[in-house]
Structures are given as structure tokens and as C-alpha cells.
């Protein structure tokens, strides 16, 4: 049996076929999501400005860019970009996940994690959870397929009626999803910086780490304020 002997060297290697190219695809699509959730969170916070401001904002999103864009045109452009990003993000994630499980098929009897954060270890299943949540969220507040409390006319009313204490489980689903989002962002932001090559020394690595925690708290916290405020009757 020849275990060692003849070295096999790869010929005609290309950067675009590497695992790092997959990571770069994941990082860039991740940046698209970060930009999107920041804007989405900003829009949600309009709920604190009252029904008129919130509904006006929702309407304006659809008339944005008229007459250059048709009614709802901007939203469709955003949806197309997000859909492409989801495909790229999930494709690279599953390709790398399957590679990683093939890289060690024989597990250790004993394996200790020394520095791994919970967030970093939850990236894959947390990502799957977020994907399922996005499907639920779209069925709930975009297509209204899941109707938790009648179908009131305006976006504001639909939002407020969804998170009433009577249907506390809706708020729980959203809050759990925000916890998953916070954890995904906490490691994801740091990972973007590493993958795109922006943390080449200890200081920039610490900064990237801080940015991860900061964005996780701001974005997930900002989102969570809305269902929490409705649940506790601050917004009605």
C-alpha cells in the first residue's frame, strides 16, 4: 500500500474556484443583508412616530422613484437583489458546510472548544433558522397568508394587531428570530472583515469584533423594540 510516496500537485489552479472565493461570495452577500436590515429597522422605528407617519412611509416606499419607476418598482428591485443574495449566501454556506463535514468524518472522542463563541458555533443552524423565519415573516406581513388577527386595512394596524398579548406567540417567534439575527451578526460582521482581508493586525481585528457586537445590538435591538412596545402597550 502506498500511503505517502507520489505527491499530487494541482495544475491550472484558479482563484475563483477556491473555498476562499466561496467565502468572499458569502461575505459580500452578507454585506447586502446588513445594509438591508439597517434600512428595514429604520423604517420599522417609524411606528413610534404614529400611525400616519408609518403608513405614509409604507406608501412612499411604493411610490419611490415615480414616474421613473413604476408603482412598487423600488421594492421589486430590492427584492431581486435580496433574492440573488440569498441564493449566493445559502449556496456558499451549504457548499462550505458540506466540505467541512467531509474534512473530518472521524469525530474526536473528546473535543474542547477554547475560544469559539456561541455565536460562531451557531452560524450554520442559526442561518437556517433565519431563513425559515424570513419565509414565515413574508407569509405573515408581506403576502398576509398567515393572518393572526383579522386583516385590518393599513400596514400600521396589521403590525399592531399582530403583536397583541392575545397572540403572544407571534411576538415570541419574532423575538427569538432577533436573537438568532443578533448572534448571526455578532460573528458574521467579524467574519466579513476577516474574509475580505480588512483585519490584518490585532487592532483591526479587535475593531471588527466590536463592530460585530455593536451592529448585533443596534440592529436586533432596534427590531425587537417594535414587538416589545406593542406587547407592553406602549404602542397601540
Amino acid at each position, binding site marked *: *500500500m502506498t*500511503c*505517502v510516496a507520489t*505527491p*499530487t*500537485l*494541482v495544475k491550472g*489552479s*484558479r*482563484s*475563483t*474556484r*477556491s*473555498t*476562499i*472565493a*466561496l*467565502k*468572499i461570495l458569502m461575505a459580500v452577500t452578507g454585506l447586502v443583508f446588513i445594509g438591508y436590515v439597517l434600512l428595514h429597522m429604520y423604517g420599522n422605528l417609524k411606528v413610534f412616530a404614529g400611525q400616519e407617519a408609518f403608513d405614509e412611509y409604507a406608501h412612499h416606499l411604493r411610490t419611490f422613484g415615480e414616474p421613473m419607476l413604476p408603482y412598487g418598482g423600488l421594492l421589486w428591485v430590492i427584492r431581486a437583489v435580496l433574492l440573488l443574495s440569498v441564493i449566493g449566501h445559502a449556496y456558499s454556506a451549504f457548499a*462550505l458546510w458540506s*466540505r*467541512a463535514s*467531509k*474534512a*473530518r*468524518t*472521524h*469525530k*474526536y*472522542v*473528546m*473535543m*474542547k*472548544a*477554547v*475560544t*469559539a*463563541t456561541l455565536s*460562531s*458555533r451557531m*452560524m450554520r443552524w442559526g442561518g437556517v433558522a433565519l431563513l425559515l423565519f424570513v419565509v414565515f415573516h413574508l407569509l405573515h406581513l408581506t403576502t398576509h397568508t398567515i393572518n393572526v388577527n383579522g386583516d385590518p386595512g393599513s400596514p400600521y394596524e396589521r403590525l399592531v394587531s399582530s403583536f397583541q398579548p392575545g397572540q403572544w406567540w407571534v411576538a415570541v417567534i419574532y423575538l427569538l428570530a432577533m436573537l438568532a439575527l443578533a448572534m448571526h451578526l455578532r*460573528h458574521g460582521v*467579524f*467574519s466579513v*472583515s*476577516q*474574509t*475580505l*482581508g*480588512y*483585519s*490584518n*493586525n*490585532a487592532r*483591526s*481585528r479587535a475593531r471588527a469584533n466590536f463592530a460585530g457586537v455593536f451592529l448585533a445590538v443596534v440592529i436586533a435591538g432596534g427590531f425587537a423594540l417594535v414587538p416589545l412596545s406593542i406587547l407592553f402597550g406602549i404602542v397601540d
Partner: protein
Amino acid sequence: MKIKLKIWRQPNAGTKGAMHDYDLAEVSEDMSFLEMLDLLNENLNEQGEDPVAFDSDCREGICGTCSLMINGQAHGPDVATTCQLHMRSFKDGDTITVEPWRAEAFPVLKDLIVDRSAFDRIIQSGGFISANTGSAPEANNLPVEKAKADRAFDVATCIGCGACVAACPNGSASLFVGAKITHLGELPQGQPERDMRVVDMVAQADYEGFGGCTNIGECTAACPKEIPQDVISQLNKDLRTAMKHGH
């Protein structure tokens, strides 16, 4: 001190292995971990049993030959190679689990010995520089910035032991490849092949079956030479630069 050992025994690459229990008495806390295994093997020899096969060479922490997953940590609980780990890091009566590095790219040859020639092939694929033959050039002709020289030297301390791969949940060799890329990439002599080097070394690592990096940091925590995680950022940056240059 007395210890209990749970050790992976596997007669050869083609045979299935299993964990075996051994009791060992009269272990001195001044012994290195490998000397403790030597003691076990002396006992096994006396009993006519096959001694436990493990890798070791310099036994002073500079060659990178020793390995071992000890109680779930590459090279054990200290930031050092296994040969520099001493039994005083354990307590009397402890049970110690000893396993080989686990990665498809590092197949077990026997007991605790794995074949790490995948690393050699990664080095072969790009871990070199081209130099003109002839008389040696005047050393001061090629100034190297202090910060760059320091970083190149720090990452050149990588001894290629494979602890990074062993500790990585993805079985990735990114810390190793990153150390080599950074070491040569910081120096003027490393510039001509810089793009080609990163593309070839990454392709070779992928081909060998190592996983991708998820920036968890277990590699750098396990590294006996404390190679920092930023060499992986450097690796990614160099690959992206090579991509831009059309490689």
C-alpha cells in the same frame, strides 16, 4: 502520580481502531508528556504488547513533529508542543484521553501517527521564492522595513505541526497556509510569485480535502507558536488581490 490513559490504538491505515485503557503508576510530574508515553511503552514492551506509536523528534518544541489531541485539545492544555507539555499540568488520578489529529487530509498511519504530507504538498505548490544563482548579493542592498521583517519572522515560526487543522471544527488549514503566505508576502524576495503562490497553495489545500475557514479562532488558540488569526485575513486579502490581477 498515577494516571489513567485512554489511547487510540490502530494497527495500520487500513484497519479500524479503537480507544484502549491503560493504567500508569510512578509518573513523575517532571516528565514531559512524551516521556510519560515512553514509560508506558517500556511497560508494554515488558508485557510483550505492541508499544503505542507516536511521532516525536527534537523534543524541544522547535521541529513540529509531535502532535496528539490530549483531553480534546491539540498539544494538550498548555500553549506549547506536546513535547514541552509536562505531567505537572495534570493531577494525580487524572484520566487523560489521547487521540491522533483527525482530518481526512491527515490519515492515521498507526495509533497516534498521522500522515501530514498534505502540508508538504501545500509547501511544494507555492512555498518557495526564486533566486538567481551566482555569488551572494550584498545583504544591505535589499532593505526590509522593520515592521515587515518582524511580522515575517513571527509567522515564520510556524513549525507545520498541524495543530491548527486538528483544532479547527472545519478541519481547515487556513492558519498554516496564512502563515506561509504572510511570511513570504511581507518580504521583497516573496513578491515575484506572490499572486501565483496564494492561488496555488489555496488550491492545493482545497484539493487535499481541508475545510474552509469560519473565523472561529480555535486554530490560533491551539497553535504552539501563537500564530495570530490575522494571517487568515492576509491570506484572504492576497487571494482577492490575485483575483483582481486575473489569476
